[in-house]
């Protein structure tokens, strides 16, 4: 069992590069003086690493903003597109996340799971009539909920591989095998990093408790995130290493007053969510 040192983990993530497609697109868009602002925002908000690094900067005490910034759009409004663009470029300059890591953790499948969970989380928020100005927060929560896993794959691939293998072989939830082999699970690592970066407490809480394995207070964000995560897994939109879908078949999810299957049917055709994410990852 390894015991990850918090400070080492934090220092490691500072230097961690982003996903190859987003790095490539950022470099391309920032070489074009006529690149559209929404394209640049779209690239950053589709990459968990660029997103956390942007939110980390904008939420630092130096900008003393009255409320925490939870989405890239909000960050652009406060600090300006050019600054956000240059922040993304500085992340791009760190290189690219390698498609193959020693943990055999598939980063493309991970990104597909993260992006589809993000879109589903926003979709659920819209369904619950969350006001439009808050919906992007739900997207970000979905995008970042499993962030800890990609950090594990890079930081401690040997033990993360053992956790992935045991989870797959014995059909045990990945966060449980992570705790066994790494001494910390991805939700806890996500919380640790998000706290260090002074992200919104609501977002930290949602990341921390997205497996619903604690007695924390129920919030709309946590419920949407939990449900979006299960839908993404159930529909096999990508894969982030966890074979377990947290549902009791037929059980009604209180907030939606439907079972998971019925909720999925009621949401209509969800394949565009997958294809949009895929087009981003592969284009």
């Amino acid at each position, binding site marked *: 069992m390894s015991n990850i040192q918090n400070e080492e983990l934090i220092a490691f993530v500072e230097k961690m590069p982003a996903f190859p497609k987003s790095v490539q697109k950022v470099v391309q868009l920032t070489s074009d003086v006529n690149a*559209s*602002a*929404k394209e640049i*925002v779209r690239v950053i908000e589709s990459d968990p690493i660029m997103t956390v690094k942007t939110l980390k*900067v*904008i939420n*630092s*005490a*130096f*900008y*003393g*903003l*009255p409320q925490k910034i939870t989405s890239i*759009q*909000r960050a*652009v*409004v*406060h*600090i*300006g*597109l*050019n*600054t956000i663009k*240059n*922040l993304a470029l*500085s992340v791009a300059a760190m290189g690219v996340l390698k498609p193959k890591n020693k943990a055999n953790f598939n980063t493309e499948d991970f990104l597909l799971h993260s992006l589809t969970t993000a879109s589903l989380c926003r979709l659920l928020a819209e369904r619950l009539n969350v*006001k*439009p*100005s808050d*919906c*992007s927060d739900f997207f970000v929560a979905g995008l970042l909920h499993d962030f800890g896993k990609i950090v594990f794959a890079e930081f401690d691939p040997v033990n993360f591989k053992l956790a992935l293998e045991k989870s797959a072989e014995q059909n045990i939830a990945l966060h449980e095998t992570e705790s066994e082999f790494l001494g910390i699970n991805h939700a806890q690592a996500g919380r640790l990093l998000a706290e260090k970066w002074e992200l919104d407490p609501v977002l930290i809480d949602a990341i921390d408790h997205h497996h619903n394995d604690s007695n924390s207070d129920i919030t709309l964000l946590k419920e949407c995130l939990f449900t979006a995560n299960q839908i993404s897994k159930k529909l096999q939109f990508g894969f982030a290493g966890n074979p377990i879908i947290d549902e009791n078949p037929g059980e009604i999810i209180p907030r939606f007053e439907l079972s998971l299957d019925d909720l999925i049917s009621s949401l209509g055709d969800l394949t565009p969510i997958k294809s949009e994410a895929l087009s981003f990852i592969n284009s």
Partner: protein
Amino acid sequence: MKFRFWGVRGSIATPGPTTVKYGGNTTCIEITTDNNDLIILDAGTGINPLGQDLLKRLPVSAHIFITHTHWDHIQGLPFFAPLFIPGNEIKIYGGLDPVTNEGIERALGVQLQYSYFPIREAELNANIEYNTIKPGESVDVGAAKITPILLSHPVLNFGYRIDCDGQSIFFTGDYEPLFNIYQPQDNEYEEYQAFIDQKQQQIISAMKDVDALIIDSSYTIEEYSTKEGWGHGTYSSAIQLANESNAKNLFLTHHEPTRTDDQLEQIYQQLLKDNPNLKYDIILAKEDQGIIL
């Protein structure tokens, strides 16, 4: 309070026969409180003549607030004569650059390098202190309270509100009012607009009821159509801000560098004609123009 413009030009200094009346130096505003505390907003080339003027008032204790680190707002700093004289106290304030993670000390340090300037930072004789400040957190200078707010520009930019002696001044630095990056048919349009509206309210309340509102108004509406995203406002956007914030006087500054004195005055006459019922005075900022509030 009283204040004086020492530089009103945007982007680059433009000395010459066509800019004699309004001036060619880049941004610098001197504010003096009733207790004689000295606050300087920005250190464009206009800070050079201000520095010369201050040599008559030694020793100098100056508080220089930098809105942002583009050249036209810092370029005069190495030529600010009081920096070279022992016994002077110079405090320089500004924000932390989010991209480089460097504080305001860089504004001077970056210029005083061997290749670019003959004197090293260590050779400056005044007592120099750098203060990296945060939006929303006021700094006290004597009886004056200076409050920064983040305003949109291609680099981190602070607008400053100065409250003192029951009077107030707001200077935007360089500022382009926010626009929606999405089209009305995009899903994100409404959400983004909500963010803009929230931020706009913050900006209006930071400017609320000021006696002197000094705004970057570089362009006409026609010019702006090809300069969206360049980081500057228009005459119209300045008037709109003054209307909404209930300002008592509106000063238009950061004159576009190719703008001649005659052109500025034509634009000014047209503005007065197009806006006949304003509750405040509009003034074209002019170099060496002193205003007593």
